[in-house]
Each structure stands twice: as structure tokens, then as C-alpha cells.
């Protein structure tokens, strides 16, 4: 039952990912990418990470994709039928399939170092959000604070670049 569900979600995810690189119109690519993100959120739910699924929908599908769609509409690039929308298809495909083959080969050949751990039911009852928070605010304290500096740099950089020419 769950395997069947996994297969369906995989097919949708991969098909929409192919649509991202196959569509001529960037808007269609963006909409397909949103579908892929929703499929990934479904995976996170199946992997017992519901808070990550919520964050995936909020940040990726809700914020980053909005920004990308805004940019597409802001620039409003006309689809010029006379120009090709892709190049080096042969070379790119070779590199892509080599990556795919390599990764799948490693995954199939390697044995898992440790057997799958069973989920601690008591820990899950405590709540996934709480577990993540406990990890982030104790063991990952420095990366968490550095994140704020990264965001500060992004704010300043983006405002400087975008505000220069209005």
C-alpha cells in the first residue's frame, strides 16, 4: 500500500521534473517545479519528518517559487520562436546520464552500513518539531547564528543590486 503510494508520488515527481527542463515557457517550468516540491513534501511526510514537509511547502513552494514567478513576470521575456531555447543537448545529456548511472550504481552496489533503525515511538510523540529544535539550538548553535549573518548579507546584497536602477 505504502509502496504503491511511493511509486505514484515518484512518477509524478519525476514527470514534473522532466517538464521543468522540457517546457519552452518559463512559467510552465515554474509551475512544474512547484508540483515537484509538493511531491518532495509528501516524501518528507512518509519519512516521518512532518515539520520539514511544512517548511518545504512554506519556504520553497510558498516563498522561493513566488519570487521566481515574480521575476519571470517582471522581466516578461517574450518567447522568441526563432531562437533555440536549449543548446549542447548531446553533451549535457551525456553528463546527466553519467551522473545518474554513477549514483544509481553506487546505491545498488553499496550495502547499508547499519540496518534501518526503528523509529522511537516515544520520541515521535514528543513531536518532530521539538526534536529538530532540540538538535538545532544545542548542537548546531553556531551554524544557526551564522545563518542570520548569511540572511543579513543576502538582504543587503539584494537591496543594493535591485535598488540601484529604479
Amino acid at each position, binding site marked *: 500500500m*505504502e509502496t504503491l503510494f*511511493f511509486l505514484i508520488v*515518484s512518477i509524478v*515527481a*519525476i514527470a514534473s*521534473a*522532466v517538464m*521543468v*527542463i522540457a517546457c519552452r515557457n*518559463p512559467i510552465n*517550468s*515554474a509551475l512544474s*517545479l512547484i508540483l*515537484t*516540491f509538493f511531491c*518532495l513534501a509528501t*516524501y518528507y511526510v512518509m*519519512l*516521518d*519528518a512532518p515539520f*520539514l514537509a511544512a*517548511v*518545504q511547502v512554506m*519556504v*520553497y513552494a510558498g516563498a*522561493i517559487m513566488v*519570487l*521566481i514567478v515574480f*521575476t519571470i513576470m517582471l*522581466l516578461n*521575456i517574450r518567447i522568441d520562436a526563432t*531562437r533555440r*531555447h*536549449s*543548446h*549542447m*543537448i548531446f553533451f*549535457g*545529456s551525456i*553528463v*546527466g546520464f553519467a*551522473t545518474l548511472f554513477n*549514483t*544509481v550504481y553506487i546505491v545498488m552496489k553499496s550495502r547499508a552500513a*547499519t540496518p534501518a*533503525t*526503528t*523509529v522511537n515511538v516515544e520520541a515521535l510523540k514528543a513531536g518532530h518539531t521539538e526534536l*529538530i529544535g532540540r*538538535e538545532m539550538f544545542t548542537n548546531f548553535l553556531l551554524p544557526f547564528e551564522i*545563518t542570520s549573518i*548569511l*540572511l543579513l548579507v*543576502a538582504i543587503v*546584497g*539584494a537591496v543594493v*543590486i*535591485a535598488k*540601484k*536602477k529604479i
Partner: protein
Amino acid sequence: MENLNGYLIVSAILFSIGTIGVLTRKNAIVIFMCVELMLNAVNLTFVALSRHLGNLDGQVFVFFVMTVAAAEAAVGLALMIAFYNNRETIDVTDMNSLKW
């Protein structure tokens, strides 16, 4: 769910699709979206392995990857807008001179 390999293979496929997109598309925004796709494929690997090993470190990493992706989206798209204002195009084959 026990099929770790299934998640890893889906992640590999998504990553390869992203690679092909980055290498073959000409529109800078589509290339940007393909980079996001690759980041997400890596996130899926992180979460699957974190679930497999019973260790939450991978999931915390996913948060940091998302933060980096958001910062990258803000600055990268601002760069594209600035470029478009100068050159009226965002085709990567037109981005071939250092100074305009």
C-alpha cells in the same frame, strides 16, 4: 518505510534531471530553477539517510540548505533583473563580456 534505496534512486534521478537542465537550457531563470531542483534532490537524500540512521543531523542540515537556497534566490534573481535592465536579455549565451 524501509526502502531507503527507493528514495536514493528517486533523488539521483531528480539530481540528474537538474544537471541536464543546467547544462542544456539557455534561459537563466530556468537554469536557476534547475539548481533549486538539484538542491532539493540532495535534501531528499539527507532526510532519507537521517531517517535510516535514526539521527536528526541530516534534517537540521536541510534547514540550512533551505536558508542558503532562499538567500541565493534573493541575490541571484536580483542579479538577473540588473542584467536584464542592462542588456534586455537573460539568455546565458549573451552573457559573454565582463563589462558593458
